[in-house]
């Protein structure tokens, strides 16, 4: 184990996989000479050369297409988007090409590509720079979606993503990059997709989270504990595949559940999870499933408004109190 930042854990995952498999390469804006906008790829160009750490123009369609095509031709590309907000013009390459080729070819073509980069809200970056849109990708059959909450998961999930034979949407949270955590140094440490983690055990209410909301829910659980409520916190780790078994197992124990997400509430990941709990776990429920999420507005710039638009610890506590009332 080594103590490192989430961003460093991502870098370590890529470095180890590039060492292990010469077909892995990175392409994206400012990933090489500039050492990465958020320093995630720092030092990798010096170590692996310019052909494996490719600085690109600001051409997201090109980046996504280059990675998709290289994957179809047998390489294992990691395409970095400077943020997921800038990937929108690349949606066609991701959704119509990467996500579909395996099925359209009757399974004859594989597309082992990772699309990664930061997403999330905070820091007053306003409407065009404060979104993650994971529900869009979750909606598309053929795409896997991972959203790590800790440094260790960042490493283990990214390594799994690179080895996975399918296109993976790997969404990091910019607000987590500097968070430190213990990370296994074993180069064979990978975290398989579809296995949620119970990050805090409890008996009265289940708080379902992923990405940045995991730490928000953990803080809420501490406050709830002081109020005499025992909250269990689940980190989903991946949204596709979705580990409903762990969620339903927890609900069978607590009978009450709050599903949380940072992104807009409307048609979000939490809506899908809540629906599945309703379909598969109705008999275990003692209260309606509640959701906590971001305000359904483009992110405002003003600090006070921005804070009001982002779900916080208090929002989780309020919902937990409502279902346990």
């Amino acid at each position: 184990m080594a103590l490192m930042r989430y961003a460093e854990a991502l870098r370590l995952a890529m470095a180890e996989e590039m060492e292990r498999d010469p077909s892995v390469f990175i392409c994206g804006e400012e990933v090489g000479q500039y050492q990465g906008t958020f320093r995630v790829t720092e030092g990798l160009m010096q170590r692996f050369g310019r052909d494996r750490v490719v600085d690109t123009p600001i051409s997201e369609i090109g980046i996504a297409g280059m990675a998709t095509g290289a994957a179809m031709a047998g390489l294992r590309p990691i395409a970095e988007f400077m943020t997921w907000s800038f990937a929108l013009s690349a949606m066609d390459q991701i959704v119509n090409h990467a996500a579909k080729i395996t099925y359209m070819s009757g399974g004859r073509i594989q597309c082992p590509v990772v699309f990664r980069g930061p997403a999330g809200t905070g820091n007053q970056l306003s409407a065009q720079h404060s979104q993650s849109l994971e529900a869009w990708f979750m909606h598309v059959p053929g795409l896997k979606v991972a959203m790590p909450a800790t440094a260790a998961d960042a490493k283990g999930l990214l390594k799994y993503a690179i080895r996975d034979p399918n296109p993976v949407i790997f969404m990091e949270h910019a607000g987590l990059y500097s968070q430190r955590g213990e990370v296994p140094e074993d180069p064979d440490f990978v975290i398989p997709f579809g296995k949620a983690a119970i990050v805090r055990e409890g008996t009265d209410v289940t708080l379902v989270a992923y990405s940045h909301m995991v730490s928000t829910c953990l803080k809420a659980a501490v406050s709830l504990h002081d109020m005499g409520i025992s909250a269990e916190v689940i980190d989903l780790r991946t949204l596709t595949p979705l580990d409903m078994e762990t969620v339903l197992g927890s609900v069978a124990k607590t009978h009450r559940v709050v599903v949380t997400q940072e992104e807009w509430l409307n048609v979000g990941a939490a809506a899908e999870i809540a629906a599945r709990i309703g379909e598969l776990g109705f008999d275990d429920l003692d209260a309606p499933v509640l959701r906590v999420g971001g305000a359904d507005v483009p992110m405002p710039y003003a600090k006070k408004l921005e804070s009001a638009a982002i779900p916080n610890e208090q929002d989780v506590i309020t919902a937990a109190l409502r279902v346990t009332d």
Partner: protein
Amino acid sequence: MAKLTLDPRDTSTDTQELLSMYRLMVRVRRFEESLYRRYREGKIGGYLHRYDGEEALVAGVVPLLRRDDYILCTYRDHGHAISCGVPMREVMAELYGRVGGCAAGKGGSMHLIGPEYGFLGGDGIVGGPVPVALGVGYAIKMRGGDQVCVCYFGDGAINQGGVHESMNMAALYGVPVLFILENNGYAMGTAVERSTKQPDMVAKAAAHGIAGELIDAMDAQVVREAASRIIGHMRATHEPYFLEARCYRYVGHGVADNAQQQRFYREEGEIEQWKQRDPLASTRARLLELDALGEADERAMEAEVEAEIAEAVAFAEQSPEPPLDSLYENVFTESTGG
């Protein structure tokens, strides 16, 4: 691609125009410097992209436009907003995130706006304003006026697919968009030569059938004379035009792009070299030569600009934060029904 012929009647810049261009550039420069200080003090959040070194590109173009013309630009938009006539106090208040801001505190630095001045705003997405400008130009064409739409974008944006789709369509339909490529040499840490094998931007426009030219945007008079000639021509022909404006950004891409980061892409002494050709300094020198800017005039001008900034800060400081219930306002315009 053939260049427009020079018409000496509308290309002369008289002393008064030179003076007012200089004044505008001083306002923009001092304003940016002041914003940086407020940012350091934590009064301004988000990103802060400064225009220092590129002032001639707004001062030489925007004052030639009419109120019914349109302007779009990138997130590096403080100078554009000021030049368009958005009061400095409203820009300052926007950066403070206050209700008195030009976007009521909802947009911030990258999304300044001033529809009443034809300023359709800054855009946080590289290449983003260019397809929009095509549509604005098309609206002008459909209405049959002689307005123009000026769209500023960076050298990084020229590598966006949407920019090329838009240039192709602008030429195809014949819409009056003036594409101004602010070539400041870098897109964040990527030098132009590291992002394209064809650094001749005019040739790229020509490939779409758009006439264009390269200008030295470190010289405000050069910019103004080219813009004056081009805009005049566009008002008559309604055709698109392309300007590659060579300039230089003196400061980091944003605040996070500090001196240490800049060592990854800039040569030692490069900034100092470009500052030798500073647009403010060269315009000032010309004014001195013409005997149009005395020591007292200059002191008065600086004092006025300083006072304008101080007033803007005072306005921003006292302007209230947006009320919480404004969070859900403006997601939609209210429908009036059928």
